[in-house]
């Protein structure tokens, strides 16, 4: 069997890269390379409509309101393409603003902006902004997922949508339900913004495995030495007094 290769499409990196989102791309790339796999990264720029045939992982990051508004129009043109991709079991990771774009609508100031309707959820606004370290217990990882959240939006999941996990520390989707993020088919949306994957290598591997399963019908992954990543994950848990 030849070298296993995955293609990753990073949507609008020049606009949706508010909080170090490029870290997620780097983690995908390295964790595949360390396992003798190849990772081809394609950046989709504003004005271009992504063509997702042959793509294995789609990444949508977070932007400022102004930047998200610019992206919105481009993205809506790609709605059909994205929708078929998701229905076909394509892996999609959307963080922060990108997570909000997955739903039916979100609020920009008082204006309701139409989203992609890829997942049955919507986002309204609340005060104050929810800003702090966030820890989430999720079925897709044995260790808690740690990261940082910073959002004015409050996201509400429809009945058929599974949350990514339960909030152990922090606010999550709406600061009230105790739920964080969403899971639907092979889509993961989360408010753990920017570099979600570096301190949560299990999440990276779960997404890679789903993509391998779809492309090669073989989700097996060679284990890596993640002691540095785990120590950084543990440092956040220790600081917040959360048990692993």
């Amino acid at each position, binding site marked *: 069997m030849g070298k296993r290769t995955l293609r990753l499409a990073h949507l609008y990196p*020049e*606009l949706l*890269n*508010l*909080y*170090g*989102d*490029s*870290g997620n791309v*780097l*983690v995908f790339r*390295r964790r595949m390379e360390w396992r003798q796999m190849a990772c081809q990264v394609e950046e989709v720029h*504003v004005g271009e409509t992504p063509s997702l045939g042959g793509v294995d992982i789609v990444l949508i990051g977070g932007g*400022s*309101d*102004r*930047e998200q*508004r*610019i992206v919105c129009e481009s993205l809506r043109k790609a709605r059909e393409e994205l929708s078929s991709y998701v229905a076909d079991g394509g892996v999609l990771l959307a963080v922060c603003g990108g997570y909000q774009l997955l739903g039916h609508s979100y609020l920009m100031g008082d204006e309701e902006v139409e989203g992609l309707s890829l997942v049955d959820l919507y986002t309204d606004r609340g005060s104050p*902004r929810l*800003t*702090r*370290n966030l820890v989430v217990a999720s079925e897709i990882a044995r260790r808690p997922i740690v990261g*940082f959240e*910073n959002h004015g939006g409050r996201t509400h999941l429809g009945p058929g949508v599974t949350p990514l996990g339960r909030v152990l520390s922090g606010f999550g989707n709406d600061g009230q339900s105790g739920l964080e993020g969403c899971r639907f088919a092979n889509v993961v949306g989360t408010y753990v*913004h*920017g*570099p979600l994957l*570096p*301190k949560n290598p299990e999440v990276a591997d779960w997404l890679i495995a789903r993509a391998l399963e779809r492309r090669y019908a073989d989700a097996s992954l060679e284990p890596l030495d993640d002691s*540095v*990543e785990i*120590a*950084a994950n543990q*440092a956040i848990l220790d600081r917040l007094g959360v048990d692993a």
Partner: protein
Amino acid sequence: VSSRYGCAVRKEGIAVAVRTHVATGAGRLVRLVLRKVAHRQGSQLPGRVALAIDPAAISGLAARVRQGCIAVSGTNGKTTTTNLIASAIEESGLSVASNRDGANMAAGIASALLEHGPDWAVLEVDELSTVRVMGELRPAYFVLLNLFRDQLDRAGEIDHVQDTIVEALRLSPQTTLVACADDPLVWAVARRAARSGTRVLSFGVASDLHVGRDRVSGARFCPECGARLDYAWHTFAHLGSFSCPTCDFSRPEPDFAASEVEVSPTGVACMVEVSGRGPARLRSGLGGAYAVYDLLAAWAAAHLAGVTASSFADTLSSFSPENGRLEHFRVRGREVVLNLAKNPTGLNLNIGLMLQDPRARSALIVVNDEPNDGRDVSWIWDVDFERLQGNSVTPHCGGERARDVQVRLRYAGMGAEIACDVAAALELTEDVARDGVLYVLTNYSALAPARQELLRLEGRR
């Protein structure tokens, strides 16, 4: 009725004056105690006390500044630029009140203004604090250096920072904005302020510096119409000669322009035009392409405050930062360079600086996440640490988020050990770089402790 009204106003006026007087006295007393008893500079507490007694103390204190105030804001270079302007005015024989150590929120500004009747006040102002202090400070000039993504969890998004500064300028209509012509995010603020009546002057670099570009730049889209900006050249990050292909948003012809810019490991030099006197050469030991902007902005402000070019050049030649901004130390025969690097742009510039150094180098990268650093350290993923690879720079990590830096460096292809302080980093690098230089790059709250430790190791304290 009118007399009673007038009387009430007078009484209230007296009450306000008395309150400011009491606030000033109390603040000065606290400062005296701190300096004499605790041997501390008191950059915050005296101002905090004064503001607790009189919330409008800044207004009363600013009114006692004889000639005028200059406020300096922007993401990077505030402290260096403020120090340069303050030194330049002082060297021309005038007295200056200044928050030289970078305590740049209301308390720090009030503390600096407690100085007895200065001729000028030169004050660094935190971007988000502008709206709190500008209406009271009413500076003659407001220097806006640049705007980058920085401390996003505290500042919200860059759009919010821009809105805040526009509002702050509206509260001080007599202020002239001195804005960086090369930064589209700054120039967007200037255009909005000008529309509401603010007088605007600008400074910029007149030609391509031909410096390497780093990977991430914050704004490449027109702030007015959203189209992708065209650049005739870049100086660093998103600064350069920009123009919008679809609307009239473009870099203005700067009022203060730097030409013939030279950037070398030993410093920067440039030519500036002086109205009616021909060009003058400015030279400084400050490192990195970005220093040109600090220099140019400082020159513009100093010139507006009446400082001559030759006096300014003298200030530059004797200017040595003693605040952990590219400060040099010698510890047991080894050179240590300490510098502040608190966001991707700052760290990318420092990496460029290190790579220019021909000696063997190691680095200690210290990242804290205190409130004034920003609790969120996601930005380390926007730093081009990859450039250190294969360049014989041995990195180490420190600070409260050392483990995050360690993960970042692992994904940049480098193993890095954790050093709990500068002494530990010196020990770890003993073998690899006995004659080499150690760069200690820290973000905001880690800077003062690192500097104290270096002074102690050097035997100065």
